[in-house]
């Protein structure tokens, strides 16, 4: 009788453990991903962008954006606002500890973006595209991991340079 009770206790403990202990849960990466820069669009007061051979320094002033020290056009300002919004929402599709920087295009990055807030500056290096061409490898300052971000951020960067570099229409009147 006591033996049966002991075995029943064993089974009860085992059953309790099975119910209580869960397997390791994998945190889903997609589609939400992991926030990259941790800033709100309103907190951004400046950007330094290098895209290929082009450079741009933008500063948010009370009257709008100043591009390389001079007030930017409304279109450029809108493009910068969009870029800031994209960077604030930017999420990693994947993150992992990678090997050689060359393998991911970080030795010759496509773009480097520095996002300035009042407190600190966050830097994001965008490297090569993945094999599918759907994502870019990226790396943050002080983070040894390699990230993958959607390739759409390149369009926003290009758009800023497009509006900065296009000839200004003559002022009417």
């Amino acid at each position, binding site marked *: 009788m006591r*033996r049966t009770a*002991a075995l029943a206790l064993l089974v009860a403990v085992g059953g309790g453990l099975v119910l209580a202990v869960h397997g390791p849960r994998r945190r889903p990466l*997609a589609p939400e991903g992991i926030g990259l820069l941790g800033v709100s669009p309103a907190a951004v007061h400046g950007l330094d962008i290098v895209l290929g051979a082009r450079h741009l320094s933008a500063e948010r002033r009370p009257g709008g954006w100043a591009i390389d020290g001079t007030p930017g056009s409304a279109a450029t300002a809108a493009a910068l606002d969009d870029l800031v919004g994209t960077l604030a929402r930017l999420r990693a599709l*994947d993150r*992992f500890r990678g*090997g050689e920087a060359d*393998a991911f295009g970080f030795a010759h990055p496509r773009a480097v973006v520095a996002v300035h807030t009042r407190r600190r500056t966050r830097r994001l290096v965008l490297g090569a595209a*993945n*094999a599918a061409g759907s994502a870019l490898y990226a790396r943050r300052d002080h983070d040894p991991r390699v990230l*993958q971000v959607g390739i759409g951020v390149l369009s926003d960067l290009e758009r800023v340079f497009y509006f900065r570099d296009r000839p200004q229409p003559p002022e009417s009147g």
Partner: protein
Amino acid sequence: MRLRRAVRGWSQLVLEAGLLVVGLGLLQVVAERTNRRYDLSPGRSLSLSPVTRRVLTEVQEPLRLTVFYRRGQRERYAVLLSRFADASPYLAVELLDFDRYPDRARSLGVTDYGEAAIEYRGNRVVAHAFPEEELTGGILRAVRGRRRRLLYTTGHGERPPAGGPGSLGRLTAALAAEGYAPETVSLLDGPLPDDADVVVVAGPEHDFAPAELATLAAFLGRGGGVLLLLDPAPLPQLGAFLAGLGLRLGDDFLVDRERRILGTDGLAAVVELFKTGNPITDPAGHPIDTGVVLPSARSVDVAGAVPGVDAESIARTAPSGWAMADPDRARRGEEPDRAHHDVPGSASVVVMAEVGPGGGEPRRRGRLVVVGDADFASDAYLDLLGNRDLALNAVAWAAGEEALVGPHEERTPEILRPLSPLVLSERQARTMLVLAAAVEPGLVLALGLVIAVVRRRRG
């Protein structure tokens, strides 16, 4: 005294429980060490095909398999690779996320998701890692160290190697996956390349010139492989060439009104009579037990013995079939009739032959396979019944690639096909009709009548 008994009882319990746990643990260790997989699924869809198993037996040294998958698709490859790894102790398998290891992929020559780098004895081959036949073909290429050359003849209205349901696109793709390099060739361009392995003549509508047949004969004489897929069409020169090898190419059209494929015009010949003990229809004890469908077939048979040629018929139509003397009458759907010289009975439709001097020659003999139909290997019919196995086995034997002869990975026929794979005799079809249209409704009616009568009697 009572305490001692209690202690002894508990000690025994602990000992028994411990023994039980240790015993179960040992069983688990034994199970891990002697991993066996039993596939009870219909069609053995969870097992490697016999062809893959035979290819893996040729791997006698460490073979490294590195597969680069797209994120989210790991499981698809992991399941297949575990079957490969279970089947051969020499396989070392590694699964890598392409996006995480792009430099590794580049260094191995992999350029796309789903590709595998196969390294064996200093050879490196890149092949698709899915489906099974692609990976098997890649392993075979790594083991052999080269692709086999497969030449399709052109210039006589042959079926093209790719494009459209009448082409041999699926067969060509399957052969490419198994390590063949398909290309087209004209027999008028002179001798065939020395390193060619097989020549396929797929459904010529026009006859061959004597010079072309001489080229083909020379290729056979050098130990090459030739596969002739011959639809009913007047080909007197080719017929004479085969006659010289002791084979008879019939100018007829085979029909089988009794064993028809449901939903067809009844012209297709269903072949279920295969000779056993040959590497095409009964490879390594795996006969093509599903039968094959030859949509428009002509007879081809062994006519007589010719020195230096060993030929045998390996497949015949059912005794219920007819060989109609006039193919046009068959195509018009006319009934076979002795008055029109139509011949009832079983007819040979596949012949295999070895050509050239045998016995101790260092060079292998030429291999010839003649099938009295080309449609069966076309895209529209390849995945019906055992057609794929017949076509692939014939090419493999002709090429001397014994490892690839056998049942291949099964493919589920797609919906958009002209045929249903349900094969019924006239009698079976009539029985089904009577059961569905008369017996079943009759039983329901009778049951209703009984219930109505019983209720009426009860008032």
